[in-house]
Protein backbone atom coordinates (compact mmCIF):
# COMPACT_ATOMS: atom_id res chain seq x y z
CA UNK A 1 0.00 0.00 0.00
CA UNK A 2 2.85 2.35 0.90
CA UNK A 3 4.78 2.17 -2.39
CA UNK A 4 1.59 2.26 -4.43
CA UNK A 5 0.49 5.39 -2.62
CA UNK A 6 3.88 7.06 -3.25
CA UNK A 7 3.74 6.26 -6.98
CA UNK A 8 0.12 7.32 -7.43
CA UNK A 9 0.53 10.65 -5.65
CA UNK A 10 3.85 11.33 -7.36
CA UNK A 11 2.35 10.76 -10.78
CA UNK A 12 -0.65 12.99 -10.24
CA UNK A 13 1.19 15.77 -8.43
CA UNK A 14 4.06 15.80 -10.93
CA UNK A 15 1.66 16.54 -13.78
CA UNK A 16 0.14 19.52 -11.99
CA UNK A 17 3.48 20.74 -10.55
CA UNK A 18 5.08 20.82 -14.00
CA UNK A 19 2.26 22.95 -15.35
CA UNK A 20 2.25 25.32 -12.37
CA UNK A 21 6.05 25.81 -12.48
CA UNK A 22 6.00 26.55 -16.20
CA UNK A 23 3.15 29.04 -15.84
CA UNK A 24 4.86 30.78 -12.91
CA UNK A 25 8.08 31.14 -14.91
CA UNK A 26 6.07 32.51 -17.83
CA UNK A 27 4.51 35.09 -15.49
CA UNK A 28 8.04 36.20 -14.58
CA UNK A 29 9.01 36.40 -18.23
CA UNK A 30 5.92 38.41 -19.08
CA UNK A 31 7.01 40.88 -16.45
CA UNK A 32 10.22 41.40 -18.40
CA UNK A 33 8.37 41.93 -21.67
CA UNK A 34 5.25 43.78 -20.61
CA UNK A 35 5.98 45.31 -17.26
CA UNK A 36 5.18 45.29 -13.61
CA UNK A 37 1.49 44.47 -13.56
CA UNK A 38 2.38 40.82 -14.01
CA UNK A 39 4.57 40.45 -10.98
CA UNK A 40 2.13 42.42 -8.85
CA UNK A 41 -0.49 39.84 -9.68
CA UNK A 42 1.72 36.82 -9.11
CA UNK A 43 -0.52 35.98 -6.17
CA UNK A 44 -2.84 34.41 -8.77
CA UNK A 45 -1.29 31.10 -7.85
CA UNK A 46 -2.84 31.21 -4.36
CA UNK A 47 -6.33 31.80 -5.73
CA UNK A 48 -5.80 29.02 -8.25
CA UNK A 49 -4.58 26.61 -5.55
CA UNK A 50 -7.46 27.32 -3.17
CA UNK A 51 -10.11 27.19 -5.89
CA UNK A 52 -8.48 24.09 -7.40
CA UNK A 53 -8.48 22.17 -4.12
CA UNK A 54 -12.10 23.10 -3.46
CA UNK A 55 -13.00 22.10 -7.02
CA UNK A 56 -11.19 18.79 -6.70
CA UNK A 57 -13.06 17.99 -3.51
CA UNK A 58 -16.41 18.88 -5.09
CA UNK A 59 -15.67 16.88 -8.22
CA UNK A 60 -14.60 13.86 -6.17
CA UNK A 61 -17.93 14.08 -4.33
CA UNK A 62 -20.00 14.06 -7.52
CA UNK A 63 -17.85 11.62 -9.52
CA UNK A 64 -20.02 8.58 -8.67
CA UNK A 65 -23.09 10.42 -9.98
CA UNK A 66 -21.36 12.00 -12.97
CA UNK A 67 -20.01 8.67 -14.17
CA UNK A 68 -23.54 7.34 -14.58
CA UNK A 69 -24.49 10.12 -17.02
CA UNK A 70 -24.73 9.39 -20.76
CA UNK A 71 -25.17 5.67 -20.17
CA UNK A 72 -22.16 5.29 -17.84
CA UNK A 73 -19.65 7.34 -19.83
CA UNK A 74 -20.31 10.65 -18.06
CA UNK A 75 -16.86 10.65 -16.49
CA UNK A 76 -15.18 10.53 -19.90
CA UNK A 77 -17.44 13.23 -21.30
CA UNK A 78 -17.02 15.63 -18.37
CA UNK A 79 -13.27 14.99 -18.12
CA UNK A 80 -12.77 15.61 -21.81
CA UNK A 81 -14.80 18.80 -21.47
CA UNK A 82 -12.50 19.92 -18.63
CA UNK A 83 -9.51 19.09 -20.85
CA UNK A 84 -11.06 20.97 -23.75
CA UNK A 85 -11.58 24.12 -21.69
CA UNK A 86 -7.98 24.06 -20.40
CA UNK A 87 -6.74 23.55 -23.95
CA UNK A 88 -8.81 26.54 -25.03
CA UNK A 89 -7.29 28.74 -22.34
CA UNK A 90 -3.77 27.53 -23.15
CA UNK A 91 -4.33 28.53 -26.78
CA UNK A 92 -5.79 31.85 -25.63
CA UNK A 93 -2.65 32.40 -23.59
CA UNK A 94 -0.32 31.82 -26.51
CA UNK A 95 -2.39 33.42 -29.28
CA UNK A 96 -4.47 36.26 -27.83
CA UNK A 97 -2.35 37.46 -24.91
CA UNK A 98 0.64 38.58 -27.05
CA UNK A 99 -1.53 40.30 -29.68
CA UNK A 100 -0.93 43.94 -30.59
CA UNK A 101 -4.44 44.81 -29.48
CA UNK A 102 -3.08 45.03 -25.96
CA UNK A 103 0.00 47.08 -26.86
CA UNK A 104 -1.24 50.10 -24.90
CA UNK A 105 -3.47 48.16 -22.53
CA UNK A 106 -0.95 46.40 -20.34
CA UNK A 107 -3.26 45.94 -17.40
CA UNK A 108 -5.96 44.34 -19.57
CA UNK A 109 -3.33 42.03 -20.98
CA UNK A 110 -2.26 41.14 -17.47
CA UNK A 111 -5.86 40.46 -16.48
CA UNK A 112 -6.41 38.18 -19.44
CA UNK A 113 -3.19 36.28 -18.82
CA UNK A 114 -3.78 35.90 -15.09
CA UNK A 115 -7.40 34.82 -15.57
CA UNK A 116 -6.34 32.16 -18.09
CA UNK A 117 -3.60 30.92 -15.78
CA UNK A 118 -6.02 30.64 -12.85
CA UNK A 119 -8.46 28.64 -14.97
CA UNK A 120 -5.74 26.35 -16.37
CA UNK A 121 -4.26 25.56 -12.95
CA UNK A 122 -7.70 25.26 -11.34
CA UNK A 123 -8.80 22.69 -13.92
CA UNK A 124 -5.53 20.76 -13.68
CA UNK A 125 -6.02 20.54 -9.92
CA UNK A 126 -9.64 19.47 -10.28
CA UNK A 127 -8.59 16.67 -12.65
CA UNK A 128 -5.63 15.35 -10.71
CA UNK A 129 -6.86 16.26 -7.23
CA UNK A 130 -10.22 14.54 -7.48
CA UNK A 131 -8.51 11.29 -8.42
CA UNK A 132 -6.16 11.61 -5.44
CA UNK A 133 -9.07 12.32 -3.10
CA UNK A 134 -11.09 9.37 -4.40
CA UNK A 135 -8.09 7.11 -3.89
CA UNK A 136 -7.27 8.37 -0.41
CA UNK A 137 -10.91 8.42 0.65
CA UNK A 138 -11.46 4.84 -0.49
CA UNK A 139 -8.26 3.23 0.69
CA UNK A 140 -8.17 4.86 4.11
CA UNK A 141 -11.68 3.59 4.90
CA UNK A 142 -9.85 0.45 6.08
CA UNK A 143 -8.11 1.50 9.26
CA UNK A 144 -5.03 -0.71 8.75
CA UNK A 145 -4.27 1.22 5.55
CA UNK A 146 -4.35 4.70 7.04
CA UNK A 147 -0.73 4.97 8.20
CA UNK A 148 1.05 3.42 5.18
CA UNK A 149 -1.18 5.16 2.65
CA UNK A 150 -1.01 8.60 4.21
CA UNK A 151 2.74 8.44 4.81
CA UNK A 152 3.20 7.25 1.24
CA UNK A 153 0.97 10.07 0.03
CA UNK A 154 3.00 12.68 1.91
CA UNK A 155 6.25 11.33 0.48
CA UNK A 156 4.88 11.03 -3.07
CA UNK A 157 3.41 14.51 -2.92
CA UNK A 158 6.65 15.81 -1.42
CA UNK A 159 8.75 14.38 -4.24
CA UNK A 160 6.32 15.69 -6.86
CA UNK A 161 6.28 19.18 -5.35
CA UNK A 162 10.09 19.21 -5.02
CA UNK A 163 10.38 18.35 -8.70
CA UNK A 164 8.12 21.31 -9.45
CA UNK A 165 10.23 23.61 -7.28
CA UNK A 166 13.48 22.34 -8.86
CA UNK A 167 12.01 22.88 -12.31
CA UNK A 168 10.92 26.40 -11.37
CA UNK A 169 14.34 27.41 -10.05
CA UNK A 170 16.09 25.54 -12.86
CA UNK A 171 14.13 27.50 -15.41
CA UNK A 172 14.61 30.83 -13.64
CA UNK A 173 18.36 30.24 -13.55
CA UNK A 174 18.43 30.01 -17.35
CA UNK A 175 18.86 33.12 -19.43
CA UNK A 176 15.50 34.79 -20.08
CA UNK A 177 15.44 33.85 -23.73
CA UNK A 178 16.16 30.21 -23.03
CA UNK A 179 13.74 30.01 -20.13
CA UNK A 180 11.05 31.36 -22.44
CA UNK A 181 11.92 28.82 -25.12
CA UNK A 182 11.96 25.85 -22.79
CA UNK A 183 8.69 26.96 -21.15
CA UNK A 184 6.89 27.24 -24.45
CA UNK A 185 8.21 23.91 -25.62
CA UNK A 186 6.93 22.33 -22.39
CA UNK A 187 3.63 24.15 -22.87
CA UNK A 188 3.37 22.71 -26.38
CA UNK A 189 3.90 19.22 -24.93
CA UNK A 190 1.25 19.89 -22.28
CA UNK A 191 -1.22 20.88 -25.00
CA UNK A 192 -0.39 17.83 -27.10
CA UNK A 193 -0.88 15.65 -24.04
CA UNK A 194 -4.27 17.21 -23.30
CA UNK A 195 -5.44 16.81 -26.90
CA UNK A 196 -4.43 13.16 -26.95
CA UNK A 197 -6.18 12.59 -23.59
CA UNK A 198 -9.41 14.05 -25.00
CA UNK A 199 -9.24 11.62 -27.93
CA UNK A 200 -8.48 8.70 -25.62
CA UNK A 201 -11.40 9.52 -23.30
CA UNK A 202 -13.92 10.00 -26.09
CA UNK A 203 -12.81 6.80 -27.83
CA UNK A 204 -13.16 4.96 -24.52
CA UNK A 205 -16.70 6.35 -24.29
CA UNK A 206 -17.39 5.36 -27.91
CA UNK A 207 -18.10 8.99 -28.78
CA UNK A 208 -15.18 9.01 -31.22
CA UNK A 209 -14.51 6.24 -33.71
CA UNK A 210 -11.79 3.70 -33.13
CA UNK A 211 -8.61 4.32 -35.08
CA UNK A 212 -5.77 1.85 -35.46
CA UNK A 213 -2.62 2.01 -33.33
CA UNK A 214 -0.14 4.49 -34.82
CA UNK A 215 3.02 2.83 -33.50
CA UNK A 216 4.13 0.42 -30.80
CA UNK A 217 7.15 1.38 -28.71
CA UNK A 218 6.24 -0.94 -25.81
CA UNK A 219 9.35 -3.02 -26.51
CA UNK A 220 11.58 0.05 -26.59
CA UNK A 221 10.15 1.91 -23.62
CA UNK A 222 7.34 0.16 -21.73
CA UNK A 223 4.72 2.45 -20.24
CA UNK A 224 4.90 0.73 -16.86
CA UNK A 225 8.66 1.29 -16.51
CA UNK A 226 9.78 4.17 -14.30
CA UNK A 227 10.94 6.22 -17.29
CA UNK A 228 7.72 5.42 -19.09
CA UNK A 229 5.58 6.54 -16.16
CA UNK A 230 7.63 9.68 -15.69
CA UNK A 231 7.32 10.53 -19.37
CA UNK A 232 3.60 9.79 -19.19
CA UNK A 233 3.20 12.31 -16.37
CA UNK A 234 5.39 14.90 -18.09
CA UNK A 235 4.52 14.73 -21.79
CA UNK A 236 1.76 12.11 -21.94
CA UNK A 237 3.95 9.35 -23.35
CA UNK A 238 2.02 6.36 -24.59
CA UNK A 239 3.61 3.24 -26.02
CA UNK A 240 0.66 2.47 -28.31
CA UNK A 241 -1.22 5.66 -29.20
CA UNK A 242 -4.04 5.49 -31.74
CA UNK A 243 -3.64 7.34 -35.04
CA UNK A 244 -6.23 9.96 -34.04
CA UNK A 245 -4.42 10.51 -30.72
CA UNK A 246 -1.07 11.00 -32.45
CA UNK A 247 -2.57 13.37 -35.02
CA UNK A 248 -4.33 15.49 -32.37
CA UNK A 249 -1.18 15.54 -30.22
CA UNK A 250 0.77 16.87 -33.19
CA UNK A 251 -1.88 19.40 -34.16
CA UNK A 252 -2.14 20.83 -30.65
CA UNK A 253 1.65 21.14 -30.48
CA UNK A 254 1.72 22.90 -33.84
CA UNK A 255 -0.97 25.35 -32.73
CA UNK A 256 1.27 26.42 -29.84
CA UNK A 257 4.53 26.32 -31.82
CA UNK A 258 3.15 28.51 -34.60
CA UNK A 259 1.45 30.81 -32.11
CA UNK A 260 2.66 34.40 -31.67
CA UNK A 261 3.99 33.67 -28.20
CA UNK A 262 6.26 30.98 -29.57
CA UNK A 263 7.51 33.25 -32.34
CA UNK A 264 8.12 35.92 -29.74
CA UNK A 265 10.43 33.53 -27.92
CA UNK A 266 12.63 32.71 -30.86
CA UNK A 267 13.82 35.82 -32.68
CA UNK A 268 15.34 37.34 -29.58
CA UNK A 269 12.70 40.02 -29.09
CA UNK A 270 12.93 39.38 -25.40
CA UNK A 271 16.61 40.29 -25.18
CA UNK A 272 15.90 43.72 -26.67
CA UNK A 273 13.13 44.39 -24.19
CA UNK A 274 15.27 43.42 -21.25
CA UNK A 275 18.02 45.81 -22.30
CA UNK A 276 15.67 48.78 -22.40
Amino acid at each position, binding site marked *: MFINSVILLLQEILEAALLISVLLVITNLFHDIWGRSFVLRKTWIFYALILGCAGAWLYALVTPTVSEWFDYVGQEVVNSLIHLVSLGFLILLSWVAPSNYFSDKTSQRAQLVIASMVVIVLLALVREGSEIL*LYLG*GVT*SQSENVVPVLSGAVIGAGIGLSCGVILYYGLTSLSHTWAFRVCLLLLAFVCGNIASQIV*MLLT*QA*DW*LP*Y*TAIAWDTAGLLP*ENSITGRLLYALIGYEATPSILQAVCYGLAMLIIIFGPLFRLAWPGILAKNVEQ
Partner: protein
Amino acid sequence: MRVEVLLELNLERRNKMKNYIATILMSLSLLFVSSLASAAAVEIELVIKDHLFFPAEVEVPAGQKVKLRIINQDPTPEEFESYELNREKVIAGNRQTVIFIGPLSPGEYPFFGEFYPKTAQGKVIAK
Protein backbone atom coordinates in the same frame (compact mmCIF):
# COMPACT_ATOMS: atom_id res chain seq x y z
CA MET B 1 -5.80 38.21 -71.30
CA ARG B 2 -3.59 37.88 -68.31
CA VAL B 3 -6.42 38.57 -65.94
CA GLU B 4 -8.42 35.81 -67.55
CA VAL B 5 -5.59 33.34 -67.14
CA LEU B 6 -5.19 34.38 -63.56
CA LEU B 7 -8.91 34.02 -62.98
CA GLU B 8 -8.85 30.60 -64.53
CA LEU B 9 -5.91 29.61 -62.37
CA ASN B 10 -7.72 30.92 -59.36
CA LEU B 11 -10.82 28.95 -60.27
CA GLU B 12 -8.75 25.85 -60.75
CA ARG B 13 -7.15 26.36 -57.37
CA ARG B 14 -10.52 26.90 -55.79
CA ASN B 15 -11.83 23.73 -57.37
CA LYS B 16 -8.82 21.90 -56.05
CA MET B 17 -9.47 23.30 -52.57
CA LYS B 18 -13.10 22.25 -52.86
CA ASN B 19 -12.00 18.78 -53.83
CA TYR B 20 -9.67 18.61 -50.87
CA ILE B 21 -12.34 19.76 -48.47
CA ALA B 22 -14.86 17.35 -49.97
CA THR B 23 -12.42 14.46 -49.60
CA ILE B 24 -11.67 15.35 -46.00
CA LEU B 25 -15.38 15.67 -45.18
CA MET B 26 -16.15 12.42 -46.96
CA SER B 27 -13.49 10.50 -45.10
CA LEU B 28 -14.58 12.03 -41.80
CA SER B 29 -18.20 11.07 -42.40
CA LEU B 30 -17.04 7.61 -43.45
CA LEU B 31 -15.15 7.32 -40.18
CA PHE B 32 -18.25 8.39 -38.32
CA VAL B 33 -20.57 6.05 -40.20
CA SER B 34 -18.19 3.14 -39.75
CA SER B 35 -18.16 3.85 -36.03
CA LEU B 36 -21.95 3.84 -36.01
CA ALA B 37 -22.10 0.67 -38.07
CA SER B 38 -20.05 -1.21 -35.53
CA ALA B 39 -21.93 0.41 -32.66
CA ALA B 40 -23.57 -2.87 -31.81
CA ALA B 41 -20.69 -3.89 -29.57
CA VAL B 42 -20.47 -7.19 -27.72
CA GLU B 43 -21.15 -6.61 -24.03
CA ILE B 44 -19.03 -8.38 -21.43
CA GLU B 45 -19.27 -8.12 -17.66
CA LEU B 46 -16.41 -7.83 -15.24
CA VAL B 47 -16.92 -7.80 -11.47
CA ILE B 48 -14.64 -6.30 -8.83
CA LYS B 49 -14.95 -7.95 -5.42
CA ASP B 50 -12.48 -7.96 -2.51
CA HIS B 51 -10.05 -6.08 -4.80
CA LEU B 52 -10.03 -8.95 -7.31
CA PHE B 53 -11.37 -9.08 -10.85
CA PHE B 54 -13.93 -11.77 -11.78
CA PRO B 55 -13.22 -13.27 -14.22
CA ALA B 56 -9.51 -12.49 -14.08
CA GLU B 57 -9.24 -13.60 -17.72
CA VAL B 58 -11.78 -11.98 -19.97
CA GLU B 59 -12.20 -13.59 -23.36
CA VAL B 60 -13.36 -11.25 -26.13
CA PRO B 61 -13.79 -11.71 -29.88
CA ALA B 62 -10.88 -10.24 -31.84
CA GLY B 63 -11.57 -7.55 -34.44
CA GLN B 64 -14.75 -6.41 -32.76
CA LYS B 65 -15.64 -3.53 -30.51
CA VAL B 66 -16.40 -4.68 -26.96
CA LYS B 67 -18.49 -2.92 -24.32
CA LEU B 68 -16.91 -3.82 -21.01
CA ARG B 69 -19.34 -3.35 -18.13
CA ILE B 70 -17.39 -3.21 -14.88
CA ILE B 71 -19.37 -3.72 -11.68
CA ASN B 72 -17.61 -2.69 -8.50
CA GLN B 73 -19.08 -4.66 -5.60
CA ASP B 74 -16.49 -3.32 -3.16
CA PRO B 75 -17.42 -0.27 -1.06
CA THR B 76 -14.08 1.33 -2.09
CA PRO B 77 -13.34 2.97 -5.45
CA GLU B 78 -11.03 1.29 -7.93
CA GLU B 79 -9.29 2.51 -11.06
CA PHE B 80 -9.36 0.20 -14.05
CA GLU B 81 -6.10 0.72 -15.90
CA SER B 82 -4.45 -0.96 -18.84
CA TYR B 83 -1.41 0.28 -20.70
CA GLU B 84 -1.92 -2.26 -23.45
CA LEU B 85 -5.57 -1.33 -23.98
CA ASN B 86 -4.91 2.39 -23.49
CA ARG B 87 -7.70 2.62 -20.95
CA GLU B 88 -8.03 4.31 -17.56
CA LYS B 89 -11.14 4.94 -15.47
CA VAL B 90 -12.13 5.40 -11.85
CA ILE B 91 -15.09 3.34 -10.65
CA ALA B 92 -16.67 4.48 -7.39
CA GLY B 93 -17.50 1.98 -4.66
CA ASN B 94 -20.71 -0.05 -5.19
CA ARG B 95 -21.18 1.41 -8.67
CA GLN B 96 -20.83 0.19 -12.20
CA THR B 97 -19.38 1.67 -15.34
CA VAL B 98 -18.83 1.07 -19.03
CA ILE B 99 -15.59 1.10 -21.02
CA PHE B 100 -15.39 0.48 -24.75
CA ILE B 101 -12.34 -1.44 -25.95
CA GLY B 102 -11.11 -2.69 -29.30
CA PRO B 103 -11.47 -3.80 -32.02
CA LEU B 104 -8.41 -5.73 -30.82
CA SER B 105 -6.03 -7.91 -32.76
CA PRO B 106 -5.65 -11.41 -31.25
CA GLY B 107 -3.47 -11.45 -28.15
CA GLU B 108 -3.34 -10.76 -24.43
CA TYR B 109 -3.94 -7.35 -22.89
CA PRO B 110 -3.21 -7.16 -19.15
CA PHE B 111 -5.16 -4.76 -16.93
CA PHE B 112 -5.05 -3.94 -13.24
CA GLY B 113 -6.73 -1.93 -10.54
CA GLU B 114 -4.49 1.04 -9.92
CA PHE B 115 -5.74 1.53 -6.36
CA TYR B 116 -5.10 -2.10 -5.33
CA PRO B 117 -2.54 -3.33 -7.89
CA LYS B 118 -1.23 -6.15 -5.71
CA THR B 119 -4.42 -8.18 -5.96
CA ALA B 120 -6.50 -6.57 -8.70
CA GLN B 121 -4.89 -8.06 -11.81
CA GLY B 122 -6.37 -9.52 -14.93
CA LYS B 123 -6.14 -9.70 -18.67
CA VAL B 124 -8.29 -9.45 -21.74
CA ILE B 125 -7.69 -12.27 -24.21
CA ALA B 126 -8.76 -11.45 -27.75
CA LYS B 127 -9.38 -14.53 -29.92
